């Protein structure tokens, strides 16, 4: 299910931002084992990149590397990794008030908050992900309020937000359950109230949408409302509502809301998803699963999370990607490469685990026409390794974005 479409209701200013990253370059990559993300790995494979886009992929026997073209060799190469949901760039490594912009606590619902107005592409945590092979990150406002704000999709390179971001409005971030009520305000104080508030706001957005769409030149349109504008975009399926939700009952609430208001839903976190495989499958809703190494305690919404959920979702045929999520303390961000690696012990095939941090998130985010696999025409984004990408003692030895080597450190 492809969810992302350009948001037509947004101001023209965003169009500038969407212009995209620095100009791509020409490069050849040759790898002992090349995981393209589309079928079997290629032994001694080559990827040619022209102007930042992939122009050829295949066995070294069949592809001539043009003379004079810069060549990078590695034992193993994969598509650039995609972090399906993060807050890096809004949340910073220092964890001080001035570098924590992922959550605005003044109101329960603030859909008007744009991620582009807070994203710091030079943040150390963004660099950290880049050094670990992550080339694309879906980041922005995090969980913690019913609607905390918008998200964006960025490449992990680029020094300004304009250079880094390639989808300025990717989704709207929402939270249900314990996470939506963990603030100091009186309201929402519990689950019922939170859902009532969200429904009221979506009904308002529907009215706003009707007024916007009324083709009556005599009557003025509604007074512009930045928040309702975005919610109307959700109701028009121009962007999904990504709901952070863990407990089984709250997952059902999310499915019920998606039914009632007919929006595109993405479940995020979803610790109890293993209890609701049939329901999630029937609703045709994708899951951006919690980090495998999530921490939980008895009594929390995540108390039932399991290392085996990923395997169960895959088995059920539910689209599933992995996220680094949001961390409030140490470590300040997770790394999807590590979170996928842990699944090796819990019934997930290596190729499926790789898919969970490449093509699967690209599809869920609706950017698989550009990234997520090594195919002709897609962005020349790769992660390079000196062995099995998931093995603890293997290193990431390089990261390439649109034909440019953006990291050479050994991690």
């Amino acid at each position: 299910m492809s969810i992302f479409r350009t948001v037509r209701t947004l101001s023209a200013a965003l169009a500038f931002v969407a212009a995209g990253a620095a100009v791509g370059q020409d490069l050849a990559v040759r790898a002992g084992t090349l995981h393209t993300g589309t079928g079997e790995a290629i032994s001694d494979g080559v990827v040619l990149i022209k102007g930042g886009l992939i122009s050829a992929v295949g066995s070294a026997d069949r592809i001539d590397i043009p003379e004079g073209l810069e060549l990078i060799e590695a034992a193993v190469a994969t598509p650039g990794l995609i972090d399906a949901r993060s807050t890096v760039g809004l949340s910073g490594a220092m964890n001080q008030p001035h570098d924590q912009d992922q959550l605005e606590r003044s109101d329960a619902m603030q859909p008007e908050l744009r991620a582009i107005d807070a994203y710091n592409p030079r943040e150390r945590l963004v660099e950290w992900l880049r050094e670990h092979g992550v080339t694309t990150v879906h980041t922005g406002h995090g969980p913690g309020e019913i609607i905390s704000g918008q998200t964006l999709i960025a490449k992990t390179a680029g020094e300004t937000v304009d250079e880094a971001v390639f989808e300025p409005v990717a989704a709207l971030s929402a939270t249900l359950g314990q996470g939506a009520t963990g603030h100091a305000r009186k309201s929402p104080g519990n689950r019922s109230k939170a859902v009532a508030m969200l429904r009221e706001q979506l009904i308002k957005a529907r009215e706003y949408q009707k007024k916007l769409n009324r083709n009556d030149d005599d009557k003025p349109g509604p007074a512009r409302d930045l928040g309702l504008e975005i919610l109307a975009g959700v109701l028009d399926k121009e962007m999904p509502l990504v709901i952070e939700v863990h407990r089984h009952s709250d997952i059902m609430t999310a499915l019920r809301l998606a039914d009632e208001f007919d929006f595109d839903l993405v479940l995020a976190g979803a610790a109890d998803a293993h209890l609701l495989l049939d329901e999630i499958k029937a609703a045709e809703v994708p899951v951006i699963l919690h980090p495998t190494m999530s921490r939980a305690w008895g009594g929390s919404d995540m108390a039932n999370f399991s290392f085996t959920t990923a395997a169960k979702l895959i088995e059920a045929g539910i689209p599933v990607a992995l996220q680094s999520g949001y961390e409030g303390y140490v470590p300040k961000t997770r790394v999807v490469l590590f979170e996928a690696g842990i699944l090796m012990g819990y019934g997930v095939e290596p190729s499926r685990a790789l898919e969970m941090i490449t093509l699967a998130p690209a599809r869920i985010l609706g950017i698989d026409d550009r990234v997520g696999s090594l195919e002709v025409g897609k962005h020349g984004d790769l992660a390079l390794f000196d062995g099995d990408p998931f093995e603890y003692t293997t290193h990431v030895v390089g990261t390439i974005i649109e034909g440019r080597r953006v990291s050479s450190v050994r991690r």
Partner: protein
Amino acid sequence: MNRLFLTALAAGFMLSGAAAAEVRAFTGATLIPIDGPEIADGVLVIEDGQIRAVGARDAVRVPRAAEVVELASGSVIMPGIVDTHSHVGEVSGADRSAPIQPEARALDSVNIRSSGIKRALAGGITSVNVMPGSGHLISGQTIYLKLRDGDQIMDLVYRFEDGSPAGGLKMANGTNPIGEPPFPGTRAKSAALARAAYIKAQEYSEKVAGAEDEKDKPARDLGMEALGEVLSGKRMVHFHSHRHDDLLTAIRLRDEFGFRMVLHHTSEAWRVADQIAAADVPVSLIMIDSPGGKLEALHLESKSAPALEQAGARVAFHTDDWITDSRYFLRMAALGVRAGMTREAALVAMTQAGADMLDLGDRVGSLSPGKDADFVILSGDPFSVYTRVQQTWVEGEKRFDLADPDDRLVAEGGFNALSDDDGAGHIHGQGPHQLHFGRGAGQ
């Protein structure tokens, strides 16, 4: 060095039933004895809760009475893991009333029925130092636990020679203990308060030692008694510290008062590895998946592990559970290898080094005849992401078995695997959520 032994009294508490008295021989696995080279196709014989023989198949005689357990090809047996720093069991220590509270004992707060204890066993951990938090200069006495079966905390404790429960003293510097009065506001104040406490303890200890009779002794002071045990060398100081200058401040305090100390966490150890090695202070390291989360962890680098090894320092690893999950202790050491530590040093760092840092080195830490039969059976190489912990044995009893559905649930999570009262860490009346957004946090 070892100050612990098993009193006859304590043994009575611990050895529950006949199972431990049986003789068992585990064959077919690769043995990692730690005190010698790896043994392919080895035999491990255990009897009465202790290791009796270790060696190659053709070099070890299996007693006729032994139950022989033939393990799957590729299996690996290593000593039970020693976690030098953990907060399993909803442990607490000092409260928020003062920055120095050596009288508070972890012993009095640990819930041994917590799922955290079970998670530790699922990770191959058999001995653990359960500590109060780091939001104080001195947050209390730690407790060394053997993860044997038991009904109450006293069934699990290691003991000092005098029979009292064994543990160390938790200290901290850097940002965590800093706060509003009566907590210190600066690093210099932190050091001054700690020094004043030890000077007072020196005086108290001298008075006790110099007293001619009971009447002459000072009024009993629980905090001074604990610090006295530190000054006498009985009780190890476990010192939470991150920044390079804070690490050296801790060493300065140690040198001034002559106590025994292990440095813990040590984010910036890579910057002062030579000084740490020269000071002959052991280090218990944690490997974290990304830098930051707090200012003094901004320069956290896993290269501290090889840097310390190359400088000649003694290194162990710890989970700081709930900061990292006890089920991933092996991963911690593997990340050390990823950063450049040798396999040999990383194996020692999970076992014998940690045992030595808890003064348990001649009872646990290696597969040596005469030591406790604490060991882990792995499906493969200890440093591989594909490897699972199959079984964990403590004193000759199986305490974790992946083939057991209940144990498997603990190992994998889900379906109420976490108990309702598992606060997962040192909490001051709130969930870990609160703790880790606020002050007084662990790592």
